[in-house]
């Protein structure tokens, strides 16, 4: 019986020739990522060794990545102290892939890992962040876990008692219409599947629309796969994956793509003709509450947010800048932009993108996650409405349970910013 990409990766990492969905394996981990919640991982890690007389040493300091991104720079003494403790731990354990609060190498973990060339096709990546699913865009198996699971990985270098997930095959063919792209595709798919439609399963992406997508677009699709509950979204590696890793991430070592077997078994196959997808919007307060932009057109917005681990990459900022260049954000609407990393920020500066955005009245924030999850600036007032390119719109998400968040693509968000209301980007000739 053939294997899916997830099954092949987990079989290799577990040292067996074959696995099938439902089997229990203990895959070796190639990369283990945490952000500020490394503070909790450290606490759980220390507990593992309590009373054993053994020294708490991580299994491989070169395979652990720690990226500060959730609350940067620290907003309170408590956060600053947590970050300080993590820095001390990093130094004591000799952890090499550490990205501190700095314009030199800092940013959001789900951009830092790809752009640093840490993630390669075929790897097993675990991260203490649900959006770790992002890294499946590079043909890896990337799994979000909690802090105690990560403490186990730090100790053993493997995940224990892992049930091999089944896979859903999504075949996206056709050409995107004008003003429609990867964000609209993934919102549409989440609407189709529901918030739990892929729970405990992997989504494996195929089809010409996915093959034709830049790595940046694939990261968007895999990032939000978890919003349908998926353990991981995977785009099997191809020429674009190799191009990105060689040209943009500076990887020089050999790489090996993992493709599914012709007779791989999928739980379900979904075919989508992307030419039929309109610009999509997820309405409050669940990500699967999705419909075409026309359903919510005219909804007044107090704040537009472009950025985050979902849509804060150079092409996203460029799209927004092209809309805003020479225009102004509507009076009464605030616009916040969070580049996904400092490398992107600096590239956007060099290309004049930042000047275009600022010229239109947008505020450029430093790269980070804070606004998306309501922990660090950009909070909403009571009754306020935001339109964001981020990945979640749960009640309370942007810091206020009495506010509402709508989700859309960078293009829809930028066009809407000009009008102060949700607007169909096709009407602007976008």
């Amino acid at each position, binding site marked *: 019986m053939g294997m899916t990409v997830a099954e092949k990766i987990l079989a290799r990492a577990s040292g067996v020739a074959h696995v099938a969905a439902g089997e229990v394996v203990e895959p070796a981990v190639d990369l283990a990522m945490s952000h500020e919640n490394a503070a909790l991982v450290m606490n759980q890690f220390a507990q593992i060794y309590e009373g054993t007389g053994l020294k708490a040493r991580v299994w491989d300091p070169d395979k652990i990545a720690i990226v500060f991104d959730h609350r940067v720079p620290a907003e309170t003494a408590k956060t600053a102290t947590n970050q300080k403790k993590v820095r001390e731990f990093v130094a004591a354990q000799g952890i090499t892939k550490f990205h501190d609060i700095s314009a030199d190498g800092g940013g959001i973990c789900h951009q830092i890992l790809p752009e640093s060339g840490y993630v390669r096709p075929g790897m097993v990546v675990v991260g203490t962040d649900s959006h770790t699913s992002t890294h499946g865009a590079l043909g890896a198996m990337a799994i979000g876990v*909690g802090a105690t699971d990560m403490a186990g990985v730090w100790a053993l270098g493997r995940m224990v008692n892992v049930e091999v997930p089944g896979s859903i095959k999504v075949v996206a063919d056709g050409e995107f219409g004008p003003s429609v792209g990867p964000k609209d595709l993934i919102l549409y798919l989440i609407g189709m599947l529901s918030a739990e439609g892929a729970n405990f399963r992997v989504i494996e992406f195929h089809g010409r629309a996915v093959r034709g997508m830049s790595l940046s677009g694939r990261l968007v699709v895999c990032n939000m796969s978890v919003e349908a509950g998926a353990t991981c979204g995977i785009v099997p590696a191809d020429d674009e994956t190799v191009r990105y890793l060689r040209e943009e991430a500076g990887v020089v070592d050999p790489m090996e793509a993992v493709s599914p077997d012709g007779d791989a078994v999928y739980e379900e196959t979904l075919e989508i003709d992307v030419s039929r997808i309109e610009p999509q919007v997820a309405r409050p307060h669940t990500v699967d509450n999705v419909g075409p932009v026309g359903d919510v057109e005219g909804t007044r917005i107090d704040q537009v947010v472009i950025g985050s681990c979902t849509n804060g990459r150079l092409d996203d900022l460029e799209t927004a800048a092209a809309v805003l260049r020479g225009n102004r954000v509507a009076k009464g609407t605030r616009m916040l932009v969070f580049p996904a990393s400092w490398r992107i920020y600096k590239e956007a500066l060099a290309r004049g993108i930042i000047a275009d955005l600022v010229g239109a009245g947008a505020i450029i924030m430093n790269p980070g996650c804070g606004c998306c999850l309501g922990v660090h600036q950009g909070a909403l007032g009571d009754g306020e409405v935001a339109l964001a390119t981020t990945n979640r719109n749960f009640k309370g998400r942007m810091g206020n349970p009495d506010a509402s968040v709508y989700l859309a693509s960078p293009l829809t968000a930028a066009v809407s910013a000009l009008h102060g209301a949700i607007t169909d980007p096709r009407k602007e000739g976008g």
Partner: protein
Amino acid sequence: MSASYRARVVLRLGDDVSTDAIYPGRFMATVLPTETPQYCFADVIEFNRRLRDGEVPPGSVIVADRNFGTGSSREQAASCLKGWDLVVVANNYSRIFLQNAVNLGLRLVVCPGIEASEGDELELSAEAVTNLRTGATFLVEPLPPARQAIVDAGGLIPYIRRRVTEARAG
């Protein structure tokens, strides 16, 4: 699992209860399981107050519909519930939340079709949940063996501790 016991439903929720609802993001700088319970369901203000005022006995039950714990990987969502010794009975759970609960020893009951309202008294056993007000009984789905093994070990920390000790000894 222990024999059956009786407990009251102290909170009744619907589908897709997110980790942001269970443990709002703004309290995420607080990480230690000893400190997270104070923010459990912080935006469900009256319930949070009852917890902090000691009005919710240990073992009390939260009943929800589908996909409980959807969203982020924040372990605070499991540790804050565990801290008050609450039990969750829901149709099914989101993957990461379920795993975090198993790892920390928070008791989750997978109970498809559960029907109960706030204030109802339930009888819970390893096999079934009975609503003593309506008399209806709902079967419990056992955890897969790979997860039950972690529960039986007392959580992931003791489970890994044993592995680490064996590895060093071997």
